[in-house]
C-alpha cells in the first residue's frame, strides 16, 4: 500500500504566508473597499456592486482607458521593432560588445521620477535643451504644457528612450544564443538576409520577444510616475492615463469605493490581456522531449 505523507504541506506554509501578506490580503482589502462607501472615521456602508456599475457607465473611465490603450499600443509599436533592429545592428563579439551593453543599460538604471523630471526640464521651451532647440532653431512651436499633441509626443518619446533598451537586451540575448552553424548553413542554402531573419533569427528570438512584449505591456499599462511628473495628466485631461485617473479619484477626491472598484477592473484587464497574449504565443512552442519524433 502506498503511504500518504502529509508533512510536505508544512514546507508550503512559508510561501503561502508570503503570498498572503504581499498579494492576497492587500487585494482582499481592495475588494472590501469596492463594495462599500466610507466618509472617514472608519465608518463603512454596504454598497453592493454600485461602484462597478457606475464606473462601467462612466465616460471618464472609458476615455482614460482609451488613452491608456493608445499609449501602450503606440510605445509597443515603436519599442519592439526598434529594439529588434538595434539588437540586430549590435556587434556580436569584440571590444564594442560591453560598451554597447552598458550604454543600452544606462537609461534603465535611472529611477522613474528622475526620468520624468529630466524630460520635463529637457523639453521646457525656454531653458530645456530640446524644447529650446525645437522652438527656436527648428522654428516649430512646441510646448507640452499647452498642446496635447506635444504632450503625447513627449511622453511617448520619454518611454521609448527609457525602455527600448529592455527589448534590445532581451533580443540581443536571443540573438547571441544562435550557433554559428545556423548562419553558415543558411549561407550554403543560399538564403537571403531577409530569409535569415525570418527563418532563423526571429524564431530563435520568439521566446525572449514574448517576454519583452509582456513586460512592456504590463509596465506601460500600469505606468504612473513618469507621465505624472512630466505632464501631471495635462494639458486638460489629454494625458490622464488610467493610473493617473485612479490616483486622482482615490487620493484627490478620497472616493475609496469607486477607486477600489476601478483598481479591480484595471487589474482584471491587465491580467486578461497578458494571459491571452502569453497563451497565444506559447501555444505551438517546442514540444517536450517525449513528444519528439
Amino acid at each position, binding site marked *: 500500500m502506498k503511504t500518504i505523507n502529509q508533512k510536505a504541506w508544512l514546507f508550503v506554509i512559508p510561501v503561502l504566508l508570503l503570498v498572503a501578506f504581499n498579494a492576497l490580503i492587500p487585494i482582499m482589502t481592495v475588494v472590501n473597499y469596492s463594495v462599500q462607501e466610507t466618509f472617514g472615521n472608519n465608518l463603512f456602508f454596504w454598497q453592493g456592486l454600485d461602484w462597478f456599475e457606475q464606473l462601467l457607465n462612466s465616460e471618464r473611465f472609458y476615455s482614460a482607458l482609451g488613452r491608456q490603450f493608445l499609449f501602450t499600443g503606440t510605445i509597443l509599436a515603436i519599442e519592439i521593432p526598434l529594439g529588434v533592429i538595434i539588437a540586430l545592428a549590435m556587434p556580436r563579439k569584440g571590444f564594442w560588445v560591453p560598451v554597447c551593453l552598458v550604454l543600452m543599460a544606462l537609461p534603465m538604471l535611472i529611477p522613474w521620477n528622475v526620468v520624468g523630471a529630466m524630460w520635463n526640464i529637457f523639453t521646457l521651451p525656454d531653458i530645456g535643451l530640446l524644447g529650446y532647440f525645437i522652438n527656436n532653431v527648428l522654428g516649430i512651436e512646441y510646448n507640452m504644457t499647452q498642446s496635447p499633441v506635444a504632450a503625447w509626443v513627449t511622453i511617448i518619446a520619454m518611454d521609448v528612450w527609457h525602455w527600448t533598451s529592455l527589448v534590445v537586451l532581451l533580443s540581443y540575448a536571443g540573438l547571441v544564443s544562435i550557433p554559428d*552553424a545556423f548562419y553558415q*548553413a543558411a*549561407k*550554403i*542554402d*543560399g538564403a537571403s538576409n531577409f530569409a535569415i531573419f525570418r527563418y*532563423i533569427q526571429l*524564431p530563435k528570438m520568439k521566446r525572449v520577444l514574448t517576454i519583452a512584449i509582456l513586460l512592456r505591456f504590463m509596465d506601460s499599462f500600469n505606468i504612473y510616475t513618469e507621465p505624472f511628473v512630466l505632464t501631471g495628466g495635462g494639458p486638460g485631461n489629454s494625458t490622464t492615463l488610467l493610473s493617473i485617473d485612479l490616483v486622482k479619484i482615490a487620493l484627490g477626491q478620497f472616493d475609496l469605493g469607486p477607486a477600489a472598484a476601478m483598481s479591480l477592473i484595471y487589474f482584471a484587464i491587465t491580467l486578461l490581456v497578458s494571459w491571452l497574449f502569453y497563451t497565444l504565443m506559447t501555444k505551438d512552442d*517546442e*514540444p517536450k522531449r517525449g513528444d519528439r519524433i
Partner: protein
Amino acid sequence: MAKITLSKLQHSYYADPQEPKDYALKNINLDWDDGGAYALLGPSGCGKSTLLNIISGLLTPTHGQVLFDDKNVTQLTPAERNIAQVFQFPVIYDTMSVFDNLAFPLRNRGVKEKVLKARVHEIAKMLEITNLLKIRGSRLSPDNKQKVSMGRGLVREDVNIVMFDEPLTVIDPHLKWKLRSKLKELHQKVRATMIYVTHDQTEALTFADQVVVMQDGDIVQIGTPVELFERPAHTFVGHFIGSPGMNILPCEINNGAAFFNGKKIQLEGPIKPDIEGTAEIGIRPEFISLSKSGIEAKVRKVADVGRHKIVEAMLGDTRISVIVEGELPAQGSSVYLNFQPNQTRIYHDGWIASEQKR
C-alpha cells in the same frame, strides 16, 4: 559534382602569422576525384574542420588555392561554389515543416515548384523520412533532424561536393550505426563527391574509399583504410588507427639489422640506407602471437573485449599489446612473443624506414 584540387593551402587564424605554429594548416596539397568518398581523420584541433571550411568557402585561406574542376574558386562564397555541408549539430529551420526545410535550398535558387516537389519526395524516400514531411522541424528528434539536414545537403542535384563535419556526434549510439550505413548507401546512389570529417576511426574507415589522416595542420598519410591499417606511414597513424594502436618499440639499428632488447628482429624487408642507431619497431597487436619461445615478457593485464582478448605484456619499461584468440595467459606469468616478420616495420623520426620485399 567535381574534382577537387587543393594547392599549397596554408591558413592562420592570426592576422600576422610568423612561425609555423601560428598556422592551423601548414601546407596542404590534395587531389580528389569526382564522385569519391573521402574522409578527413585526425584528433581534435588538427585542422580538419579548418580545411573543410576552406573547401566550403566559409573561410578564405591565408595562402594557396582551391580548385573545382581546375577552376579557381578560392574567392567565391559558399553559395557560388555550389556545395552542401552538414554540420556537427543538426541545423534545422524550426518553424518550417520538413518538406519546406528540404525545399529551402531549391526555393532560394528559384527552382520551379513542380520540379522541386518531385526532388524533395525523392530525397525523402532515400532517407526514409517521407512520413515526416508535414511535421514541423522543431518537433523532430536529433537523429531525424540530422537526417533532414543531410537531406538539405543532397537535395540539389548539381552540388559540387557534399561535406559532413562530424555529423554523428549528437546521435545516440544505436542510431549512429544506422545513419552511417545510410550515408554509405546514399553515396552509392547519388555519386556526389563526399568529404567526411571525423575523429572517429570507425566512421572514417567505414565511410571512405580514401582516408586523409591529419596531425597539427599537416597531412600525415593518404590511403585506403586497408593501407592505413597495414602499413602506416607514420607512427602517429599507427597509433591513431586500430584498437589498441600499433606497438612502437625502441630498437637499435646496426649494419642494416634491427635489434630489440638485444635480439635481432626479422623485418618486412631491408631498412632504408644511412639509418643507424636508435629507431623504432612498429608492429600491430594483431600480428604478434604467443608461443613456447621468442621474446620473453611479463603479463601485466589481460582484457576480454568481446570479439577478441587483449594481453598487455611488459618487457622492462616497454609495454606491448597482443591480441590473442585462444586461451589467455594468467596475469603475472611469463609469455614468449613472436612477431610476424612481414608485418614488422621500422620507423625513424616517426616516419617509416623499412621497405617491403618485392
